[in-house]
């Protein structure tokens, strides 16, 4: 297994479970299950035991490894020099399980759907661009920017609204951009996170080739997960694109006054998506957007930025739901944290977070008290 030479170095001291200030446990799976085995240190010790044949591959081990949301809280707070490899180690363990073909059915089905349909929803590729019908958004044809929407934004009903919302703002700004529509392929971020390195490589190479062929040099992603894959993993495969998350682009367009805003009165708290924040250090642009809206009051949850609690959708859990629901699920804890701020709106900048938190609001019976809105949707409400 990759990183095998590191796994014995975990002292299981548990700093990885916390926020920086010890305010709360911040590992989503530990918050949910509360056995040490579901903490980063627990995983490290179990992976070592597994490699040493002291424990066998089991359904429980699969649950422990595949429930990890790859949120990188552990990498943020671990005190050791190998901290940056923690998430990679957990992914490497998943890769080994994939190699051995011993994976949970939900993970197997996810891979199968990507392999056969090109998306996790088993929807026709031809319908990828339907979200944009009637918006006036043009297919990509050598415009300055390619707006890459991804599987969730293309097929999930809630996420499609966010895609349209971002698209509308980009149109309003006069930015030169286009979309791939039915030509778009899965970015593969979750394929990689779930341990299917071969399928990920295929998807990445397919996308890199296509982007090069159509002359896409600047890419705007809807989803922080795609942003992460393009920015980090594709780069390792030779890609050389300028990649931005839409929040960065919108913040810039606002700053250059290309999107005029009127006021929007609301008390809003912002939930940092892990693949935008901890994984890529992008914390400010969504906040800059919110702060630039007259009448909007931004209030922070105690656990914010690098200490934000993951919604639980990362690492493929959005699709596989191995982390699962219940009162202690991270998404439900997160909406309770948002409620504590007195906010009326939880702002997000990730379609997966939007869906996870909306479902959590329903489960917590908080839909009368809180809304989940994408940053772009709030901007649209504030348009002059």
């Amino acid at each position: 297994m990759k990183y095998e030479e590191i796994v014995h170095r975990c002292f299981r001291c548990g700093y990885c479970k916390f926020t920086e200030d010890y305010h709360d446990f911040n590992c989503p799976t530990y918050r949910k299950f509360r056995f040490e085995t579901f903490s980063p240190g627990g995983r490290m010790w179990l992976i070592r035991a597994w490699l040493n044949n002291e424990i066998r591959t089991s359904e429980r081990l699969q649950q422990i490894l595949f429930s990890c949301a790859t949120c990188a809280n552990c990498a943020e707070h671990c005190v050791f020099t190998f901290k940056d490899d923690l998430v990679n180690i957990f992914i490497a363990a998943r890769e080994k399980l994939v190699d051995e073909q011993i994976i949970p059915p939900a993970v197997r089905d996810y891979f199968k759907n990507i392999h056969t349909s090109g998306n996790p929803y088993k929807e026709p590729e031809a319908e990828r661009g339907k979200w944009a019908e009637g918006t006036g958004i043009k297919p990509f044809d050598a415009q300055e920017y390619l707006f890459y929407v991804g599987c969730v934004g293309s097929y999930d009903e809630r996420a499609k609204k966010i895609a349209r919302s971002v698209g509308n703002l980009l149109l309003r700004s006069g930015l030169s951009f286009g979309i791939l529509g039915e030509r778009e392929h899965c970015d593969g971020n979750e394929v990689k996170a779930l341990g299917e390195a071969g399928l990920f490589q295929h998807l990445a190479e397919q996308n890199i080739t296509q982007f090069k062929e159509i002359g896409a040099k600047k890419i705007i992603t809807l989803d922080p997960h795609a942003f992460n894959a393009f920015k980090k993993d594709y780069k390792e495969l030779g890609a050389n694109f300028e990649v931005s998350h839409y929040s960065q682009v919108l913040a810039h367009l606002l700053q250059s006054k290309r999107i005029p805003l009127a006021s929007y009165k609301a008390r809003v708290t912002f939930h940092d998506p892990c693949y935008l924040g901890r994984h890529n250090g992008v914390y400010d642009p969504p906040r800059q957007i919110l702060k630039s809206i007259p009448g909007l009051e931004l209030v922070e949850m105690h656990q914010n930025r690098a200490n934000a609690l993951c919604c639980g959708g990362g690492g493929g859990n959005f699709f596989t739901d191995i982390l699962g629901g219940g009162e202690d699920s991270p998404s439900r804890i997160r909406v309770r944290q948002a409620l504590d701020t007195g906010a009326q709106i939880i702002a997000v900048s990730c379609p997966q977070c939007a869906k996870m938190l909306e479902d959590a609001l329903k489960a917590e019976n908080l839909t009368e008290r809180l809304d989940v809105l994408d940053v772009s949707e709030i901007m649209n409400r504030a348009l002059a």
Partner: protein
Amino acid sequence: MNPILQALADVVGKDHVSDQPEEMYFYARDPGLMPPHRPDYVVVPRTVEEIQAIVRLAAREKIPIVPMGAGMALTGLIIPLKGGIVLDMKRMNRILEVNEKARYALVEGGTSQGFLRAYLDEHYPRLRHSIPDSPGTATLAANVMIHGQGRLTQQYGFNSDMVSGLEVVLASGEICRIGSCAVSPDWFSKGAPMPDLSGLFLGWFGATGILTKVAVKLYPKKKMREVEIFVTDKEDLVPAMVYELTHTEMVEDINVFAQPRPMIFKGNHHLALFFTGDTEEELEFKRKLIWHALDPFIKSKDGGFMGLPPVMKPTLLDMPQRSVSRFADVKRGGGFEYSGPIILVDKYPQCTRKITELADKYNLAYSGMARIIGRGHCMMYGFAFTFNRADPDMMERTRKALHEVSEFALSVGGVFWKPTVEEQQMALEKMDPHTRALMKMIKQNLDPHGIMNPGNWEVA
């Protein structure tokens, strides 16, 4: 389903009990060097009532029961030596009360040191507790149960001395309150003016009862905290230096450390002196007195204050000190263990010579650290060796070195702190026979079925 597992699931819910190999593997061991032993069940309870029900079940079925905090004692105290149920207490982590004026906090039995620190920082910025340098996950209950020490130990003694009340679930499943809380709604004293019954539980590692609530004393938190390091290469003078420093009553915390790396540290003894103030004037006043106390040693050229590199100060002022855990990776191997006998400060020279002797003998990387307790009444001298978890030979050499430390500590009048089972037996053997008999009587009466963390403090 196994009827015991079913019974436990009926108490805590099926998601909070496990008999799966993964949990049995993990909870069979701690990060130290003690041999593992698997539990039969791991339970993560949420309420005192659940613990009572589990203990009653364990008593009925004669199943051992081992309470666990973060498991960071490193000496195997949470290893279920005779199997049974491990109770992972960390789900019981609520802070129940902070009495600001009386300066105490009441917390549940699984509350971590980190939680209390963060809570006080946020809500009571003028209060603090004696936070140890074990990781933030370490629980208050486990820490006082092992007579831990912390950042206020130089002034106020062991962290267990700072307990101001306990709630205990006895081996019968009954709840017992210890201290003022037994007769009053307030948790200000663990004993006085009544008989102090806390000694029936503190230091027993759960062998006489399970702590479900702990009240700890809080202390003034000054706005500023500083550290100075005095360096000497004369280990024989360290006790005298500590004596002078403690006489000033200006130093909050004194740690003396000696380690071979980096190279400039080798052969030197570093007295890390922590002090606090609400104003620059207060801080400066204390600094002057501290410097003045050590003047004679500077004049005799036996030591001097070290200029602290900018990166070192935040590391030293960190609470808990994350750098302590980093010692585990010195050999890129994820392990360290230390024996930390409680011993007179004047034994410092012997201790420091012993650790270098053992490090040479067994070819180990080491760090010696003395934490002064109660203005010099005694100290904890940590004989710490780091090891590579993937190197069985190095692990065995470390075990041998620590065994020699145990023999050495007893021979020079030390008493084991958080002793391994082997050290417990060594201590019992050396103990006054009447004291030993008293311990046996206490254990037999409080744990008639021998189910409470069996193997620990067992008098033959």
